[in-house]
């Protein structure tokens, strides 16, 4: 996946009616790890949570003060803001199985992931290297 340069696209939402899954991905610039993590996340969400999720990518290089709020140390970190409770997954999300466990997708959703709603639009963080 490539980092899109969508201006102020810090927040990129799916246009679904209710964002049951509110995810936040903290990264630090366009590193290989960030790119990999986002691609992995996107893939997993599309497969399991299509239409029900929103992904917010926060680039800490741009907004370092945001790291405190979610207690971010390791990068990349994926934070499940909703549904509660908050869950954190660190790493490049390469292990899909663990991500699903970590996000509780398996248990929470059961087999309900067949809803395939289109319109998942994603704009990653602006290029910090600029």
């Amino acid at each position: 996946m490539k980092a899109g340069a969508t201006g102020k696209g810090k927040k990129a939402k799916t246009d679904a009616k209710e964002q049951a899954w509110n995810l936040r991905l903290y990264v630090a610039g366009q590193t290989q790890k960030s790119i990999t993590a986002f691609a992995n996340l996107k893939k997993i969400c599309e497969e399991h949570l299509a239409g029900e999720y929103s992904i917010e990518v926060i680039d800490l290089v741009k907004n370092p003060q945001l790291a405190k709020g979610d207690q971010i140390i390791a990068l990349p970190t994926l934070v499940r803001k909703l549904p509660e409770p908050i869950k954190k997954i660190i790493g490049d999300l390469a292990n899909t199985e663990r991500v699903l466990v970590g996000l509780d997708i398996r248990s929470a959703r059961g087999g309900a992931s067949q809803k395939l709603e289109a319109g998942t639009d994603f704009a990653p963080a602006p290029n910090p290297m600029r």
Partner: protein
Amino acid sequence: MVKKKHDSVVLAKCPTGIKGLDEITRGGLPQGRPTLVCGSAGCGKTLFAMEFLMHGAMQFGEPGVFMTFEETPEDLAKNFISLGFDIHDMESRGLIAMDHVRIERSEVEETGDYDLEGLFIRLGSAIDAIQAKRVVLDTIEALFAGLSNAAIVRAELRRLFHWLKARGVTAIITGESGDKLLTRYGLEEYVADCVILLDFRIKEQIATRRLRIIKYRGSSHGADEYPFLIDEGGFSILPITSLGLDYPVTNKHITTGVPKLDAMFDGKGFYRGSTVLASGSAGTGKTSLAATFADAACRRGERCLYFAFEESPSQIVRNMGSIGLDLGRWVKKGLLRLHSTRPSLYGLEMHLLTFHKLIEQFDPQVFVIDPISNLTAAGTASEVNSILTRLIDYLKMRQICAFFTDLTHLQSSLDGASEEISSLIDTWILLRAIERNGERNRGIYVLKSRGIDHSNQIQEFMLTNQGIDLIDVYTGLGEVLTGSARVAQEAEERSTELACRHEAEHRLREQELKRQALEAKIAALRAAFEEETKEVHLIAEEKRKRQAVQTESRLAMGRFREGKPSEPPAKRAKKRLKGA
């Protein structure tokens, strides 16, 4: 931002502001480098680090970032307000930035590769926000507990310390001590410039905190274990080594408080800044002597710090009232501070630190410890000796006159402990109990007094309700008598003297009478003699008259025989005429 290597020919130091530490490290921690502070739980790592930041922000104009991995900033603020550090206030003034890093392993899932860039970013943003020059990471080892991939954590820590150096901040990283390594996770591997070990050990139920600089690259430093104290004033470290023997001296004297004792010291008393030891067995009046000395200091308007290891302040005040000393008024006036603790309350070093702290606070001219022998309850004799050496050196530096009392065992005039410290003492007074004739009296004499021509006599030491009095003991007839024996002896002498005087007077009177009798005799004799003389004169006159008469009659006879009266004829004629 990259630090130039070549300008560190002389290692720049970052003063910590922690009492004593800057002396030990000859200026502070290595500037712009990380320092590892390690120790077991509860040894004061967090306090050490916090003081470093607080002093930096308040005294040296260096704002600091405190990144805590364990306690929350709220807890820290609560804990440190009691030490006088208002963290919230400091934060609002932009002098301190707090960041609480919380990692809960159970809340975090790890999948794949990651780094700790988030930590760097947080730290970096906090440093930038307040232009911090100092950073504390307390305790970064929590990362090992929070993250399962130790390899990543290690690599990132290595990077972090390089990064801190590159930012030029002076950092303190705390670490829990481990079994074989200095820290549980071997942080010393990464922090190579300066490592400080805090130790908290308990020996015979007495706790002593100690600090040791394990290494300090590029700088000389004190290598000993330094005791330190944590109290309401925060962290203070005591340079354990002696200050040396190059203190200033004075020729001024101060009175002992007992005029007759002054007289034993050439009429001058002790030297100011000298060390006085009063040894004696129980009940020989050591405390009274010490209190009198303290009282005299207060009378001069000087401050006196009185450490009592046996009695409470109010008990001392009460008891000294019985010998006419009103110590209470000096306490009220703020000239006298009585400080009572049990010697076993804490370790010797702690006592020494307490002495130092109170001396610095109170700045006394006279310092009393009553008694020093009790300190052996908190340590061995050699430890006491070392503590006293340091204390005395410190007191001499400040020209404080020290008065120690020392409890010796009954009958043994000089105790082992006293002998050991003898070389430290300038003036040594010995109080002795003299038992004789069923009573016990006190004697006092000066064992030594450096630089003062002192008396070699034993004096009797009396505690009266007017204070201490010294009396010359009876030294006649080749023996020394004190107390009632002395009094009896004196009375006897007085009566003998009186008898002598009476006898002399009596004899004088007798002699006078004799003289009078003699004179009367002389007068009588003289009278007789005069009488005799008169008689003799009379007889002589008679004889002369008779002679004259005889002569005349002989002449007349002759005339008659020769018919030529030798008598003037006129007379005769007349006679004849008359007769005719």
